[in-house]
């Protein structure tokens, strides 16, 4: 197994009386695609929020390349090299597509107040490079020519890809994608699958994916983790997960699981 880049260890997050994430362990292998699945309310997005610093977990630790993330604010986490997208797209709606990506580059740029006012040579150079990089990312996600559109005016699929481009702008090592194919038709989904594979293969990014579309999960994941009521109920390769009775129980109910078990028994007999 490849080196672990991100480790979640015994993380628990409680909202009032509800245990959203319960003593969860997760190891993210470097340069891999790792999916998290589970029914609604299983704690998937809460896990993302814990990793990216939006929530402080009640207990447990999150380690990223030797750094503890559980005490850091979201901007510090991003600076370390983790960025994310959102389940419901959250672009800066009144900024242009290009500006969205430029904002994404914020932590990599250094121009301060005075540099901006006096337009120092360093600032001009940095700005020029940032713009070039933004155009490159725009091309990478296939949005060339749409950079000057307000992001709220882009079609849905473009908004999804723009959000990923914005997340890539900070040059992350780990990218968390929260349901990137939600609301997409089959051909758009297919495109997104290729795109995610390119992220790993061309940019060397480690991807942690929340996804409901099982065909996507099974196709691209190296490891799948299944959550239910905040707990990990199964983990393994797609093939292992597909035949796991706990998983089927969580998704389809107890009857289906026992039915499957009987089938298996019959097959063995």
């Amino acid at each position: 197994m490849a080196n672990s880049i991100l480790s979640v260890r015994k993380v628990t997050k409680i909202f009032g009386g509800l245990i959203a994430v319960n003593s969860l362990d997760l190891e993210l292998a470097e340069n891999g695609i790792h999916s998290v699945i589970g029914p609604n309310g299983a704690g998937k997005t809460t896990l993302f929020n814990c990793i990216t610093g939006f929530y402080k977990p009640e207990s447990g630790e999150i380690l990223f390349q030797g750094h503890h993330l559980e005490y850091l604010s979201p901007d510090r986490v991003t600076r370390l090299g983790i960025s994310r997208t959102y389940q419901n797209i959250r672009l800066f709606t009144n900024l242009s597509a290009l500006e969205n990506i430029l904002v994404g580059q914020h932590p990599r740029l250094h121009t301060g107040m005075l540099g901006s006012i006096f337009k120092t040579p360093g600032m001009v150079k940095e700005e020029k490079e940032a713009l070039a990089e933004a155009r490159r990312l725009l091309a990478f996600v296939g949005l060339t020519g749409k950079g000057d559109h307000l992001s709220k005016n882009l079609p849905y699929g473009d908004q999804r890809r723009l959000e990923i481009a914005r997340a890539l702008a900070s040059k992350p090592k780990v990218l968390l994608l929260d349901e990137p194919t939600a609301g997409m038709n089959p051909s758009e989904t297919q495109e997104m699958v290729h795109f995610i594979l390119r992220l790993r293969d061309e940019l060397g990014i480690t991807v942690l994916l929340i996804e409901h579309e099982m065909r996507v999960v099974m196709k691209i994941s190296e490891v799948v983790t299944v959550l239910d009521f905040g707990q990990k109920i199964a983990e393994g390769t797609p093939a292992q997960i597909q035949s796991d009775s706990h998983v089927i129980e969580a998704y389809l109910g107890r009857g289906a699981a026992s039915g499957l078990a009987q089938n298996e028994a019959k097959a063995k007999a």
Partner: protein
Amino acid sequence: MKKILSSSWFIPLQIGSIAGITGILMSLVGMVEEFAKRDIIAGIIEMGQTLVFINLLVAGYFAASRSQRAQAYLRVIEGGLAGAIATFFLWILVQLIPPLDLRSIFLNASPALIKVLTFDREGAAALGVMLTAGFLSGLAGGLIQSLPARYRTAVVRGLIWVAMLGLLQDLIRVTLLNFPGVGTALQWMFGSRNEKGLSVAGAIAVFVVVTGGSILQSNQATSLSARVGRLPAKQQQFIRWGGLLLAGAIVFYLPQVLGLYLSEVANQVGLFILMGLGLNIVVGFAGLLDLGYVAFFAIGAYVMGYLTTTAIGPESGQIIYGPQLNFWQALPIAVLISLVAGVILGVPVLNIRGDYLAIVTLGFGEIIRILAGSDFLKPYIGGSQGIVQVAPITIAGVDFNSPQKLYYLIILGILLATFVSWRLRDSRIGRAWKALREDEDVAQAMGIHLVSTKLMAFATGAAFAGMSGAIFASKIGSIYPHSFKLLVSINVLALIIVGGMGSLPGVFVGALILVGLPELLREFSEYRLLIYGVLLIIMMLTKPEGFIPETTHKRELHEEEPGTV
């Protein structure tokens, strides 16, 4: 009969009633009567009736635009009906005033008002004239509505110009009389010297020129800016520099042309522009709703006052100790202290968002004002008696305090603030502010440090207000706590909203409309807030993005043009 009662006639009835009630309200608060003192077209139309007419025109316009009828002429007639219904309300008001002795409750329900409303007729003649006038005005409104869009804007523009020129005629006359050869033209346009408003010929001329020009302009297939954009880069640059030079020359010579009074008005507008530019960074760019912005204006003014006052000593009304600096020594200190105050306010409100932020900053503004008036600080800043004998602005010993000279200082300040705002807007910092405005959580997840980014916005905004306050203190020569009321904050916020949130030219336009116009129409100052409120409501309903909305830059393709690389 049945047809008339069917619901399709409901629209003129509804809109007419609304306009009627609006008309009654305007009459009873005294606007009609007060405005009647100003003529728009000398001897024929005065402002009071115009107010009534505008109300009817608007009623006709909306009745026609809301109407569901297919035929244009029926829609126009519905507009006329709405106007007639509205005047019927006014007629009822006129009938009720004497028997009910309304004047004992509403001071303004005077015989003079009745005279304006009834066109000086009585009995049935009054009703007839009023209904006819109402119907015709409504009809006119409906007609305007039924015009194709570009003629419609042209006509509306023409009417607005006639009204504005008529209202401001004495100012225009005084200003332009200094120019040789203009006198006869003015004579023709505005009539003889002691008349007010435009002459009939002048009004028609203005209307024809403005409307015709507007139609001609819209007839051109391409706009002027598009045609300039097609010229080669060198010519474009030439035009741009030429335009800039021309604007500079106009701005430079303006006080000579404007004279004393108008320069004073320009200065007041200028101080508000300066504040507006600052608040535009806080609210327009960074989206931090600050309702206590006047606090920084006050701090700038008080620092200037304290550092430069010559009224020193233990007597009442004097401050105990002051370093008696001159204006130029005190100005950077005032700006710096305002900036620090911006940071100090910023720290406790870092985690407060939206409505709550507005309330907290509102409180901060009031705290500063009350502190300024408190006995506790009286030995230092004069309490409710304020600070007097604030040092005037001098350059090399020469007094600089006349409005026409002060103008240049304020222009300099505005240029500086505009430059800083403009550079920041298109930089990494400006982008961080805008991201913050759009979605604070996501902005933070983009790696933006919330604390420093917010504090930078507060500090920059406060510094501009401090500069404005410092100049204000020296200009007036004495400052009192009551100059720094909540209303100033609201004024500045309103001018940003009217101009366009986050837009730099919007600040200028907003300040001219909301500060400049009321100064020029002083006799209506009683209704200033009423008009303000109405204007804001209309803006929010029809043009919530402001007169000059914020634009996003086209940067994907434009940067690499052959001319610039």
